[in-house]
């Protein structure tokens, strides 16, 4: 099995080699997004060093207080040394706090910038990936990548990174300060590192496994959540609630168990470190106490040594916490990096020459299409559509009409053959130029949150209000839009403003109208319209399609009537092709279909 991209995303049983590859991929992604901030990152490290150094000075000063300040005051009534020590202590405290706060500010900005960059990359990549990918990769998964996975990473960056940097430094400084005061106390500390390394190694392996499982279950939870909420009408009318509830509860339980395991693993690691720490403190104390009795060590020094040893294990626990969130975040990063590794099957050209469609001549040369080698959807064929021609695509559902439309709009690339617009291979045209030239309007008229005007402006972001109204008038949508509570500014998601399927289709027509592309493809774009609306559009269409290349897929043959030419498809093949009037007069498929449809009207 492969681990490339999103393949094997749900697998928990990765072998050593796969583990390494995935880890490498995650780390190189992390490095890639952190790299631009490395200068700022280094600055924060300097801040941490200063702050940590100042914090470490504290116990030393207390020790000095005991060993120098105290005797001077008690014996000689000389308060000068202790005053200096106290002043130093205050200054170091304030300084440490100030640098710490500064560091926190900087690091939050960096970590938010890194997260923002990742969010942006995932979003942009989502838009870049081909439709074919989206048809098999659930929307819930992408949402999981953008929400819970990013959240997990955020926990690492905001909390974890500071504990890493300060933890390591604290460790280092404390060890140095400790050895400086009393080298012998350094020995138990060094010995203690052996069990620390051992438990860390164990934790590393165990937690990686558990966090990976936790990510997988979390994603499943999100997928079901999104699916039920978007399909809530069907859920309710078919009483799917109990089934869904059970399924969701099962997933929640899986997730709960996985989460529990991750906490359990850390719950062993953390006290184990604490245990090692306590034993080390006791050993240091033992070694120190005998030397104090012998007079080999001052009491103050012992206090400092004991305080340092205790403090030494404080940051180790911070490091453990960091490592914990690092493990959690890298499980999330594995999924994100896998997603980003996916390559779009429809690739944008590297250095496309600018393109503006002129005549709108479409040509498909020896084109064939198959999703996979076993199922050929469109066997090899050629087709030329002259600029300005209106072509109707007719045929039974599943005949391949939509696939053909998607190939012309370059939602898919043909498996073989070339599609050209005005003689230029579609694959050499930049996405922006291509979309300006060719627009595909589908039956599913998706509206984005925002106003009706915002939704129409999707077709032409800089359209003026007058243009909006003109477009809406042309497709017969102006009347119903004006009747909405806030007219064109009506929020399509606000309570009570829900548009009907037909109204949504009218809005999506406005989009296409205002986009004014050279080639317009309407894939069942009028299916939900009632007859008066369709009639309105019909009039609009005549103006809309005038002088434009148009491909219309419609089951309502009334729409087909305005076509110059009809293509009848069956089983992926074009079985009839000719001027509409001619085909109508004949006895072929289209003539039969048209007669049946005619009879169905009143």
């Amino acid at each position: 099995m492969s681990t490339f991209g999103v393949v094997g995303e749900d697998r928990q049983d990765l072998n050593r080699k796969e583990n390494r590859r995935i880890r490498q991929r995650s780390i190189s992604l992390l490095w890639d997004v952190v790299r631009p901030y490395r200068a700022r990152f280094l600055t924060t490290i300097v801040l941490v060093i200063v702050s940590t150094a100042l914090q470490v000075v504290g116990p030393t000063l207390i020790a000095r207080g005991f060993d120098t300040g105290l005797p001077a005051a008690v014996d000689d009534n000389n308060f000068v040394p202790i005053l200096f020590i106290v002043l130093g202590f205050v200054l170091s405290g304030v300084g440490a706090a100030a640098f710490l706060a500064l560091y926190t500010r900087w690091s939050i900005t960096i970590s938010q910038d890194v997260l923002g960059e990742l969010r942006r990359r995932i979003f942009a990549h989502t838009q870049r990936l081909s439709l074919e990918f989206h048809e098999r990769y659930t929307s819930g998964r992408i949402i999981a990548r953008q929400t819970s996975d990013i959240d997990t990473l955020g926990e690492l960056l905001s909390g974890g990174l500071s504990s890493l940097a300060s933890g390591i430094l604290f460790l280092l400084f404390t060890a140095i300060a400790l050895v400086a005061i009393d080298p012998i106390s350094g020995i138990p500390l060094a010995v203690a590192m052996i069990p620390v390394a051992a438990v860390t190694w164990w934790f590393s392996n165990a937690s990686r496994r558990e966090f990976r499982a936790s990510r997988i279950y979390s994603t499943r939870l999100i997928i079901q959540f999104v699916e039920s909420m978007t399909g809530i009408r069907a859920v309710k009318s078919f009483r799917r609630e109990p089934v869904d509830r059970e399924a969701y509860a099962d997933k929640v339980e899986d997730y709960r168990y996985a989460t529990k395991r991750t906490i359990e693993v850390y719950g062993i690691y953390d006290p184990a470190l604490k245990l090692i720490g306590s034993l080390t403190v006791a050993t240091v104390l033992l070694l120190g106490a005998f030397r104090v009795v012998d007079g080999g060590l001052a009491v103050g020094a012992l206090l400092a040594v004991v305080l340092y040893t205790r403090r030494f294990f404080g940051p180790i626990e911070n490091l453990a916490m960091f490592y914990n969130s690092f493990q959690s975040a890298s499980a999330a990063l594995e999924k994100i990096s896998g997603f980003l590794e996916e390559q779009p099957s429809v690739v944008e050209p590297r250095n496309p020459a600018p393109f503006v469609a002129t005549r709108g001549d479409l040509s498909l040369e020896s084109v064939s299409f198959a999703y996979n080698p076993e199922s050929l959807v469109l066997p090899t064929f050629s087709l030329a559509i002259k600029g300005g021609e209106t072509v109707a695509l007719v045929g039974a559902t599943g005949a391949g009409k939509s696939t053909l439309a998607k190939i012309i709009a370059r939602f898919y690339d043909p498996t073989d053959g070339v599609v050209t617009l005005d003689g230029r291979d579609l694959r050499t045209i930049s996405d922006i130029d291509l979309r300006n030239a060719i627009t595909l309007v589908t039956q599913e008229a998706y509206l984005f949150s925002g106003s009706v005007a915002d939704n129409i402006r999707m077709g032409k972001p800089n359209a003026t209000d007058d243009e909006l109204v003109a477009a809406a008038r042309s497709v017969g949508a102006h009347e119903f839009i004006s009747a909405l509570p806030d007219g064109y500014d009506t929020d399509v998601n606000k309570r009570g403003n829900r548009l009907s399927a037909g109204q949504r289709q009218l809005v999506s027509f406005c989009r296409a109208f205002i986009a004014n592309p050279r080639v317009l493809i309407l894939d069942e774009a009028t299916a939900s319209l009632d007859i008066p609306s369709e009639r309105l559009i019909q009039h609009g269409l005549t103006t809309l399609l005038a002088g434009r290349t148009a491909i219309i897929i419609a089951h309502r043959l009334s729409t087909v009537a305005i076509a110059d030419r009809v293509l009848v498809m069956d089983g992926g093949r074009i079985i009839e092709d000719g001027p509409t009037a001619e085909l109508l007069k004949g006895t072929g498929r289209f003539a039969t279909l048209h007669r049946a449809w005619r009879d169905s009207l009143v």
Partner: protein
Amino acid sequence: MNTESAAPEKNTGVIRSLARIMPYAGPDMKRLILGMGIALISSGFALGIPLALEQLVDGPLKNGNPADIWWAVGLVAVLGLMEALFIYLRRVTVLTPGTRIDSRLRNAIYDHLQNLPIAFHDKWQSGQLLSRANSDVSLMRRWMSFGFVLLVSNAITIVFGVVILFTWSPLLALVFLVCSIPMFVFGSRFRSRYTGLSRAAQDQWGDVATSVEESVHGIRVLRSFGRGSDALSSFADRAATGRQLEVVKGNAKATLGFWLVWVPDFALAICLLTGVWLASEGDLTTGQFFAFFATAAVLAGPIESIGYLMALALEAHSGLNRIFEVLDRRNDIVNPDNPVTPADTGGSLIFEDVHFRHEGTPAGTPDLLNGVTLEIRPGETMALVGSTGCGKTTLTALPARLYDVTAGRILLDGVDVRSLDLTTLRTRIAMAFEDATLFSDTVRNNVLLGRHDLRDAPDEQATAVLEQALDIAEANFVYTLPHGVDTIIGEQGQSLSGGQRQRLALARAIAAAPEVLVLDDPLSALDVETEARVEAALRRVLKTTTALVVAHRPSTVMLADRVALLDKGRIAAVGTHAELLASSDAYRHVISSLDDEPRELPEDSA
């Protein structure tokens, strides 16, 4: 030092709303409290270590008795071991309850959302809901199993620690306390500021999730118009606002951290000075002095952690508020207290002066449905015709109570649908929508969705129902799918064309074998030939089933015995197709495409 002591009067809000989690904690609350007790004991051991140290410094270290040193050090070691042991026990104790509360909340939110009426879902995008059901719940888990336990036990530790400080030296302890006052003052200021910030950030991330969701669900539109980059920049704007809020939040935390670090250090410095003075006066032994600082060192950790825990508490607070905004939403479409069982089950459906307006429709606008009266007799098929946006779809959603009427009533077999058991009602009325929603499941399960009774029935019986429904809906294409009727479809499976999806949705409604079938323009995506075949088959089914069919085409109208014309919120006319064609101009306008259309197709295709 905890939030309680910082500003008691304002804190009742935080505490009271956090207490709302209690019903979801249930029996696990006991274990959480036990966990706190254990946390306290472990802190107790930690605080015991300085006591042992004092004994060591003032005892064996002075008199130099090696045996005593062993004892004292042994005591320190044991205390350390016990501390570690109890930390472990605390984690084990709170582990299960924390995750259980998390699951209970998740399930409760999901169940509640599923039960909430469509009207609610119309105005909440799933991104906002998801951020509550997922991010906010995870936040609650961290708070309950970690933050809450530690905040309480650390607060108590600090109190005890301060008491112990007093036993070493009342004066020193007092100095320590007085010098810590700025911390309290700042803590309270932080609290009021952070609450709003945390809420704003959570809402913003919910909006970001919505952006993501829309960009994925609307990908075809974005792709068609090449608006991917616009979507990206609007997403980036939203994310940037979120980032800004996080930065401001982080800065507030940084400032709090500043106070929590320097103030205790400052207090310690003053204590050091005071201690030296006291010692010089002979009022303090070295051992006591030593122990005072060792205790203060134990307290440094909890004091510093309070800042983080306080921020977590405030975030949990606003997260929980967001969760309860959903959970508090009353479901007004519920089972009646005493459901009525209708005597007759013929399937008569009567609308009596039905009114409906969406919640929040501006005053002055007439009701969307403004007194609909219509009787559909048992076994009759009624077509519903009207112009786009006139309320047809809304009307079809009323019998199954996807929405409730705002006035008037709907009778199924003579009983108000609101008096019927909801499950019974929705078993008796099946629907097929124009936008066919299929679930990520097998074809078989999608089609047999409404047939809970078949789940335990023999396989042949279920298969028979399935095959018949697929046959009527002309959905036999499923047999050519890779695994036939066991192929997974829906978002996570095989992708199907619009027409194919619509036919499966129709098969689903037919398989449900309801008394009343409500079809909302169910054939719009079908080609003429398929439509004709489906209609022929449907006629057989409709002969015995009461049906309400939204129709846009004459061909669909032909399925019906009678047609009702919906106009301006009322039924303007009822009759057979021929009658209405003859009598109603409005009807002709809506249904007949022949009048206005060019009668002949363009002769020459120039």
